[in-house]
């Protein structure tokens, strides 16, 4: 359980976090979303005691992180995959962390196996790809068998297989009753992994809701249906109250879910070649929500200088 209450953090004249309050509950994967510069990493640093807040509190299991003795048994974290000495081997890196919290060598081997890093253990971090560093960081986070895990952009640099693995890992950790708090700037990523979403922009809370509710509130979503008998299917769908657009074999159906459409087609012996629920509007809803709070707007690239030359 992570409780952030009225958190403010200023760096000189820059306000990174501005009155943020939210709670991350155990048993769920909670996604922490926001554009670059929204204050996600700062918030996580404060939770982990690496930064002191200007005002407000951030508690893990009811205690400030700085007061924890051997905190790795309660909180595992990965903030920056590059936060390791490049000249040290993966094994020694993990061992030094484990020793500081009274964790044995046996557990180091376990987390290396868990993250698929056994072969890389004697190698120096210097030669690791970003994906391997992420895995090493995740291994370090799991060392103390913690009840709360905090990951900052853990999918950066991971290959598709690694992303799939990490999603499953988060879900398993949450299913075991742990608190899983994961930041990302990709809505599509979080929509697949998280049960709950905390969305911030410019250091303020924009939304604190379940993923389901966020998806439901994100406006219309539709289903793309391809069928050789599209002309027969369309009136049937309209008859059930759906809105149908499209031409040729492809129909865009709103107001009915994919299962309803499939059942209806099956009743009438109509073959369906493609049935795709489309949630493109989810990303749009996120962009709408955070659009005004984006820290770094992209300008229109000008080619004038190049042309003049």
């Amino acid at each position, binding site marked *: 359980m992570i409780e952030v209450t009225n958190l403010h953090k200023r760096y000189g004249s820059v306000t990174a976090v501005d009155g943020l309050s939210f709670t991350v509950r155990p048993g769920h994967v909670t996604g922490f979303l926001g554009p670059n510069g929204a204050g996600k990493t700062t918030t996580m640093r404060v939770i982990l005691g690496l930064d002191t807040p200007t005002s407000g509190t951030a508690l893990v299991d009811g205690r400030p992180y700085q007061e924890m003795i051997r905190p790795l048994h309660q909180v595992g974290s990965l*903030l920056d995959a590059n936060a390791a000495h490049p000249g040290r081997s993966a094994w020694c890196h993990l061992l030094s962390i484990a020793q500081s919290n009274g964790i044995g060598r046996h557990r180091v081997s376990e987390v290396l196996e*868990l993250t698929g890093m056994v072969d890389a253990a004697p190698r120096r971090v210097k030669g690791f790809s970003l994906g391997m560093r992420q895995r090493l960081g995740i291994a370090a986070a799991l060392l103390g068998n913690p009840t709360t895990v905090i990951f900052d952009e853990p999918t950066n640099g991971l290959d598709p297989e690694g992303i799939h693995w990490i999603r499953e890992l988060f879900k398993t950790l949450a299913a075991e009753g742990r608190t899983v708090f994961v930041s990302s700037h990709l809505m599509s990523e979080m929509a697949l992994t998280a049960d709950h979403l905390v969305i911030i922009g410019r250091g303020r809370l924009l939304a604190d809701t379940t993923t389901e509710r966020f998806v439901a509130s994100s406006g219309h979503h539709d289903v793309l249906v391809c069928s050789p008998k599209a002309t027969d299917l369309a009136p049937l769908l309209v008859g059930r109250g759906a809105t149908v657009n499209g031409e040729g074999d492809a129909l865009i159906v709103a107001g009915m879910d994919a299962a309803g459409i499939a059942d209806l087609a099956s009743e009438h012996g109509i073959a369906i070649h493609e049935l795709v629920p489309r949630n493109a509007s989810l990303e749009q809803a996120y962009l709408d929500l955070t659009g005004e709070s984006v820290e770094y707007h992209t300008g229109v690239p000008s080619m004038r200088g190049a042309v003049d030359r």
Partner: protein
Amino acid sequence: MTALDIAADPQSAPRLPVRARDVLGSEWTKVRSVRSTYWILIIAAVTAIGGSTIIAAASTGRAGHSPFEPLEPVFIAWVEYPVLAVGILGVLAFTAEYSTGQIRTTFAAVPQRRAVLAAKAGAVGLLTLCFSELLAFISFFLSQAIVSNHGGLSLARCFPGCPERRHDDGLPAAELGRLRHHKQVERDIRRLQHRDRWCHAGEHQPNGCSNLHSGQPRDARGLAS
């Protein structure tokens, strides 16, 4: 293997206070697991041992007829040069932690920052102390061997106050002899001898003191002279 293995792990969170041994162990692992440590120690060893043996070898040629006085200060100077290398080791142990970003991982694992810094200083200090001590001994015995093989000189012979000591008296005695230069050590040794005699006379402390007595006589006598 799935994450379920994490839950299956029998090791549950021990609610023990932070122990100096844990943090010291962690810092020791860090010091010994980077190559720069070994490079620096090698440089220190080459400087100290190489330097002092070269000085010893160079001295054997001209020292044939005169008492071998100048070796000792030069020897000590060479053994002290590695202080520079060892200093770099200490600086690196701290700066590398910050420049690589490792410090975030470290402080996330041990939020008690002073404990971390103290442990780091302890680990580096202990390593350099032991290593320097080792270097000093190796340099000394090597120099001593070189000097005693050429012209029958030994360091012990150079020490004023023990002219009767022969070069075959052995190196440990010579080392003790070197210590004798220090007034405090001499006083301590005399006190030991005094206590030794007193114990022997009293005979009511048979174990510790009589062992001391039987173990020490030759050296002690030699030193007292």
